[in-house]
């Protein structure tokens, strides 16, 4: 039976084979395995398959329903696009790690129980860190270590939560859990790390921009969206998530405006877009959940496209710092065009994918009467156009001419970007194709004259604000800088505290040693005084003296006995 082969394994096996072979054969394997995965996904029936008895429990490796199939499909599409985009890469580590990472993310999506989820959860962490380390610099090594530590903590929280859940309910099934269930809070924290909740978010902005040109594209697709998937399955309608999500949409855009590394700008806009999805999961209505997963689908594609265009710039121009780029449209016209398609999609321009997915979440928030949340989301919608929609293409490809003249991106990169751009426009122009895959029936109509008009007004006036600020010189220039974020807490504050604790400990130890030393010296001189040749305790005593002593002791004993 076709559903008894865990669908994620195809890519994992492909990755292991890619590690063993080179050249054309490796290219064929990297392209064929995502296609095989897609073919299997198209043929799956719903239900639980691939049961395995292990660890004294029955594990379900294949839980097939509309939600898992939808995420499986988009992960497989992303794996295929990544494979095309990375065809020029000769580094075997990256060529092997990318499909293993994608396959383990798909494995996690189809996990029917929490232990299977945990196993694939950790495998995504280990496979993905190789893409950060593949930059092979001291900087990327350190960022990768921080990334790995945080991802593994997420896995441990998941395991602890799963075991607490099993102890409390007797079930390990990966279905609706909710915050009140045993282990519910632990698992929410585990998923929250992956979904980059506020203050748990900074591993993303820290590590993703340090990966290779192709590595960051792969990273952007899977880990965070796996977090969204897990939240959508286990915590729909959890009100706390509405506020967490709204916060996530708003705060990163301020950072994105002042950030110089354009891939880090995109990493901030990832947290911003994930915020929309988290809000949708928190709202929990059918429209909101449809919107959350549809937006995850669209986001994987347009965020991949934006990271692909920046990867191409990194490959050809050697940098993605806004302060050093500009005028690249002359050298890389195709990349410029694809970047603009990605920018229009994330900004939710009519006919582009974000327009038909994000609006479902906005409509659900408004329909539920959440006016404050809706205003925050609208602010974030204007803000995302500002920093991802305009800033990215403007500073990389236009702005002032940096004088950099380079070649256009390699053909395989252009093909990958072209396919991704076609998907972004396809979803935006024919939303019915995506809507048909969503978990709940859709009666939402994105293309009404009022929706098109209000969105265009919002976007055009955001663009006007940018232009006015640019032409008046108020817009902050791109500056080479590091901006402190929550990673400062563990990169600076924690070491400072540890150093503080360490020096207090050293001081206390020195004081103790001094006190102990002088006590020992005193004891030593005391012993010498009493025990050296003429010392009182080393003298030869007379027999009479001894008898007297014994008599005194006996008398004392007698007195004590009768007292």
């Amino acid at each position: 039976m076709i559903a008894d082969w865990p669908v994620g394994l195809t890519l994992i096996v492909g990755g292991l084979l890619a590690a063993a072979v080179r050249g054309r054969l490796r290219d064929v394997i990297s392209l064929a395995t995502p296609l095989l995965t897609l073919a299997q996904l198209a043929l799956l029936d719903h239900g639980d398959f691939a049961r395995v008895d292990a660890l004294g429990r029955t594990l379900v490796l294949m839980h097939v329903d509309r939600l898992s199939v939808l995420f499986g499909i988009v992960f497989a599409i992303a794996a295929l696009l990544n494979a095309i985009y990375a065809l020029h890469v000769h580094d075997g580590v990256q060529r092997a790690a990318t499909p293993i990472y994608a396959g383990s993310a798909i494995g996690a999506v189809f996990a029917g129980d929490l232990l299977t989820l945990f196993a694939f959860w950790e495998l995504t962490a280990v496979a993905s860190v190789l893409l950060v380390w593949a930059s092979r610099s001291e900087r990327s090594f350190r960022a990768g270590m921080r990334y790995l530590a945080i991802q593994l903590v997420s896995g441990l929280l998941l395991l602890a939560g799963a075991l607490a859940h099993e102890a409390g309910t007797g079930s390990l099934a990966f279905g609706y859990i909710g915050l009140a269930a045993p282990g519910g809070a632990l698992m929410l924290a585990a998923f929250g790390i992956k979904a980059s909740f506020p203050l748990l978010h900074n591993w993303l902005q820290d590590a993703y921009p340090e990966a290779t040109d192709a590595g960051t594209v792969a990273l952007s697709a899977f880990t965070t969206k796996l977090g969204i998937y897990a939240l959508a399955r286990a915590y729909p309608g959890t009100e706390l998530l509405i506020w967490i999500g709204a916060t996530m949409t708003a705060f990163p855009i301020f950072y994105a405006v002042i950030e110089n590394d354009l891939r880090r700008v995109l990493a901030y806009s990832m947290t911003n877009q994930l915020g929309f999805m988290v809000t949708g999961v928190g709202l929990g209505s059918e429209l909101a959940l449809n919107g959350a997963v549809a937006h995850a689908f669209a986001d994987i594609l347009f965020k991949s496209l934006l990271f692909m265009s920046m990867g191409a710039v990194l490959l050809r121009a050697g940098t993605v710092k806004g302060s050093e780029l500009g005028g690249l449209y002359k050298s890389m016209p195709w990349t410029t065009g694809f970047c603009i398609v990605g920018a229009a999609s994330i900004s939710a321009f009519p006919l582009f994918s974000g327009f038909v997915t994000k609006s479902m979440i906005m409509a659900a928030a408004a329909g539920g009467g959440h006016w404050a949340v809706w205003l925050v989301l609208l602010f974030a919608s204007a803000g995302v156009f500002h920093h991802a929609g305009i800033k990215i293409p403007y500073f990389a490809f236009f702005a002032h001419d940096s004088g950099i003249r380079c070649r256009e991106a390699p053909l395989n990169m252009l093909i990958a970007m072209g396919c991704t751009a076609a998907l972004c426009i396809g979803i935006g122009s024919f939303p019915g194709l995506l809507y048909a895959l969503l978990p709940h029936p859709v009666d939402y109509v994105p293309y009404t004259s009022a929706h098109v008009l209000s969105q265009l007004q919002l976007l055009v006036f955001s663009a006007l604000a940018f232009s006015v600020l640019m032409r008046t010189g108020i817009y902050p220039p791109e500056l080479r800088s590091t901006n402190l974020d929550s990673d400062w807490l563990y990169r600076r504050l924690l070491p400072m505290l540890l150093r503080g604790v360490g020096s207090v400990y050293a001081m206390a130890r020195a004081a103790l040693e001094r006190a102990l030393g002088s006590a020992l010296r005193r004891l030593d001189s005391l012993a010498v005084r009493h025990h050296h040749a003429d010392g009182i305790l080393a003298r030869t005593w007379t027999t009479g003296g001894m008898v007297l002593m014994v008599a005194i002791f006996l008398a004392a004993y007698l007195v004590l006995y009768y007292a």
Partner: protein
Amino acid sequence: MAPTEKKRWLDRSENVTRLYRGLWLIGLLLFAADAVIHRHEDFSWAEWFGFYALYGFVACVALVLAAKELLRRLVMRPEDYYDR
């Protein structure tokens, strides 16, 4: 820029100004379209004339000013801050 390279359309500042004015024209037309198309909204205040246009403009200006004047002063450090 290499001296032999031909000048692109966007290299002329008068063309950039043309684009800028064109954007304002589109914006004003969209603003005026509120008089023609009735937007039904869940919140009555969102039906106000020009609501989205004003909100988008004000939100972006506020965003940039807050990021530049507040956040940058608070969190900006030299590029090698963590490497030292």
